[in-house]
């Protein structure tokens, strides 16, 4: 028999962010987004930098979380996300993310060969996803440079 809900657990090294019963969840896997419904086959994947969304029986709209790297384990009735960093939309510091975005863009645009390309592009992706989540779900006006 298939379970009719998933227990979603999101933990980061510093805290447990979420433990909730949900109907569906979308995970930002390294190789693309993964939609998970109750009864999914057991699966293990690495996470990329992206947006995790879940929907509970109570909410009509999916709730987003920013998730930055880590792992996810999918079981028929449970999804465990071990993220390096994860935040709710309301926790994101927009001005900090924008500053990080500007910094990363500047670094990538410069011709300096000494820059750590990987680090800068990760920083860029991180800032972009944070800003994107805030814009989408908070509806707050975000100034574009």
């Amino acid at each position: 028999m298939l379970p009719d809900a998933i227990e979603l657990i999101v933990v980061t090294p510093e805290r447990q962010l979420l433990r909730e019963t949900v109907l569906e969840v979308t995970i930002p896997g390294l190789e693309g987004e993964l939609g998970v419904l109750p009864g999914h086959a057991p699966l293990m994947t690495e996470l990329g930098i992206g947006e995790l969304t879940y929907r509970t029986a109570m909410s009509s709209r999916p709730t987003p979380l920013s998730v930055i790297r880590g792992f996810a384990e999918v079981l028929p009735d449970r999804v465990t996300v071990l993220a390096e960093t994860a935040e709710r939309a309301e926790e994101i510091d927009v001005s900090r993310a924008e500053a990080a975005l500007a910094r990363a863009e500047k670094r990538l645009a410069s011709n300096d060969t000494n820059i750590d390309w990987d680090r800068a592009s990760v920083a860029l992706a991180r800032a972009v996803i944070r800003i994107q989540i805030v814009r989408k779900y908070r509806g707050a006006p975000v100034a574009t440079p």
Partner: protein
Amino acid sequence: MATLLDFRRRIRSVKNTQQITRAMKFVAAARLRRAQEAALAARPFAKELARVLRSTMARIESPQHPLLAKRPEERILALVLAGERGLAGAFNTNILKTAIEFFRSKKGKKIVTIPIGKKGRDTLRKAGFEFAGEYVNVLARVDFGIAREIANLVTELYAKESVDAVYVVFSEFKNVLAPHLAVEKLLPVEAIERGEETQAEAECTQIDYIYEQPEGEILSRLLPRYVETQVLRSMLESSAAEHAARMTAMDAATQNASDVIDALTLHMNKVRQAAITKEIIEIVSGAVGTA
């Protein structure tokens, strides 16, 4: 003989000291609560990670990874977590004694240390140990970034085969009264602690997962994370233990100050009484003489 004024001065001085120790006790208590909360909050991740790692390792026939490679222990690296500050009772002494005893038990082997916390660094440097790095002022507010930095350094040294084993010497926070002094092996990663595990969770490890990436690749990403969380855990535990030790020490000091003040006050009153008595006797005997 001490005069009344001398007593008053001494009592005032002890009172001032007591105010300081009392304040330090409250500060330590507040920090302890925060440290305990942080240690508690870090637990779910460590538990889930250990579980995922175990099930991945179980799936691979003979896991190969530099961090799993066992070598004869000739060069030993030890992370020594002591306190950042003094005035914490026997906290620093105890943990450093444990560390030095441990080094002694590995006689003949090359010992390299990485002290974490100012007090540990100072003592180990004086004792003439070789450092592979040092981290001070990091335990007041334990941050995952620092734990990761330390873990990266350690794993790199191990993977380069500069050292053959890595241990962590730290105070494990068990209760407020006394920490448990622990020496744990960090690398090579050996049997991963099972912890309390339900029947259902034990069965989970047997599940045939679909792996989006090759198992070996996932393993090689999981292992460094595991080392990071172990370092983070020992830092959080040590920091909580330090605050607990300071709180206990300062509580005892405040109590002692109270005792000293009581004894001094009693003494002072006796001296005062004696002076008054003497004066009355003088007046009385003078009056008797003139009568």
